């Protein structure tokens, strides 16, 4: 699976070379980054397996991989993978237009089956998070559409969707007041906290909490929870998520630095 993502997709679309930029991050909090020339073309980093010292699974991000959308990104967290495409600012239907800001729309397609009520609920969460961050007033009477496709689900899906959406919005050049990231925490029956749980850990956990945090002040933008937990546990999870988000934001920054320093 790693080589699949390491593929350097260089395509000639209407005579224009399109480089898709792959950046692979390690989940280790100490963050040792080594560039590996073996990954064809683009330099990425070796991803180390999830050891006892680190909290997040290994993640990777690939931007600008689709030719049609204005911006696209694929975010990989462990085995969970989501592909996001952003169209906008574009034409909006008169019934949906807002006179002083951009209309944001999110479409989430599950891996199998038709989208149902759970997808609608998640779309609303992602849309409201993006609305809080995107500077819609700079593009009034336009629409910005974020389309998310679940490629594989191995736990922490909503967090992965949020990360993919953020990277895709950056790739599209949509003006934002800050970046955001998604972090999932799971609490098991004896109160142990696990960050970025796998599907198995999520099923066995007593509570699963997903947070979206912004990059400027680490404030809580979005939260959705499953299961029972106490107030103190909530504060503990929030603090752990804020610490983990620092790591994700650093990865975003390096990913973008890498991209823009090349060209």
């Amino acid at each position: 699976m790693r080589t699949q993502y390491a593929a350097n997709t260089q395509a000639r679309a209407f005579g224009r070379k399109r480089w898709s930029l792959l950046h692979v991050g390690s989940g280790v909090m100490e963050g040792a980054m080594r560039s590996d020339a073996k990954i064809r073309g683009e330099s990425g980093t070796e991803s180390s397996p999830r050891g006892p010292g680190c909290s997040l699974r290994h993640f990777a991000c690939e931007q600008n991989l689709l030719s049609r959308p204005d911006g696209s990104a694929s975010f990989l967290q462990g085995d969970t993978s989501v592909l996001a495409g952003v169209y906008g600012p574009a034409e909006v239907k008169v019934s949906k237009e807002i006179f002083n800001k951009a209309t944001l729309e999110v479409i989430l397609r599950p891996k199998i089956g038709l989208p149902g009520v759970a997808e609608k609920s998640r779309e609303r969460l992602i849309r409201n998070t993006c609305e809080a961050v995107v500077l819609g007033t700079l593009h009034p009477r336009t629409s910005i559409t974020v389309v998310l496709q679940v490629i594989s689900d191995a736990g922490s899906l909503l967090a992965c969707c949020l990360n993919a959406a953020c990277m895709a919005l950056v790739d599209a050049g949509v003006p934002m007041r800050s970046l955001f990231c998604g972090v999932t925490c799971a609490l098991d029956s004896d109160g142990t906290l696990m960050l970025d749980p796998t599907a198995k850990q999520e099923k066995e956990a007593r509570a699963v909490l997903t947070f979206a945090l912004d990059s400027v002040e680490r404030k809580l933008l979005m939260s959705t929870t499953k299961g029972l937990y106490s107030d103190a546990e909530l504060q503990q999870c929030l603090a752990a998520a804020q610490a983990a988000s620092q790591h994700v934001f650093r990865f975003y920054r390096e990913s973008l630095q890498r991209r823009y320093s090349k060209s």
Partner: protein
Amino acid sequence: IGFQRKPNIWKVIFETEFIITVEPLEYYRRFLKENCRPDGRELGEFRTTTVNIGSISTADGSALVKLGNTTVICGIKAEFAAPPTDAPDKGYVVPNVDLPPLCSSRFRSGPPGEEAQVASQFIADVIENSQIIQKEDLCISPGKLAWVLYCDLICLDYDGNILDACTFALLAALKNVQLPEVTISEETALAEVNLKKKSFLNIRTHPVATSFAVFDDTLLIVDPTGEEEHLATGTLTVVMDEEGKLCCLHKPGGSGLTGAKLQDCMSRAVTRHKEVKKLMDEVVKSMKPK
């Protein structure tokens, strides 16, 4: 020097009408500065809550909740079904929130809109997370027959804070549900329903939802009306049960909140739970002698 101009009352009325239409946010800000709201409430005060149970005679359980102007009615029907194959000793609880065009001009007739679907998912999550009823209690015969409770929540008047009203209506209706005794006769292997012997459901926890609206990224107000929800920059709903455990922290985007602000919300949610519990107990006491 002694001449004093009388204030032009029409000018004042015109200005107020003007600002309400053209700059509603500015109008609200003037009130929020004085720590109150246009309808006279404090920032942490709920609207008058009234609950009426058992009004629908054809349903197995029903409740009508009014939170100021917001009105939600919940009707519960119990039917038979085969238990799920992966959990043969469990029944089903199927909630559905309907926001018909009756309640507000923003909803059109047709398939459920996004707001209704999100509310339905929220109620389903609350039932699942809070373990309000043990699904095993709904099983009649493992692997063969179980109860399925269809909970239909219909909003009759939409004036903001639909989630709180729906949660309360669901809780009140579930407390009102009476299921008849069902025995499976050995000879015919068919279910025999004894309508004369009815028993209440075993409600284990009492989840109570408290909703907040965030204004200008800093101010938190409790129980927003429809107008306030429209002007708010974010919303937050906390569902708490009696031990102070949280079943759901629903914050669908909007302005960021710090941990300290969340803590204030939790304490308000605790006091709200006490208020609602008191109201529930009064209602249950009043319906006891049948």
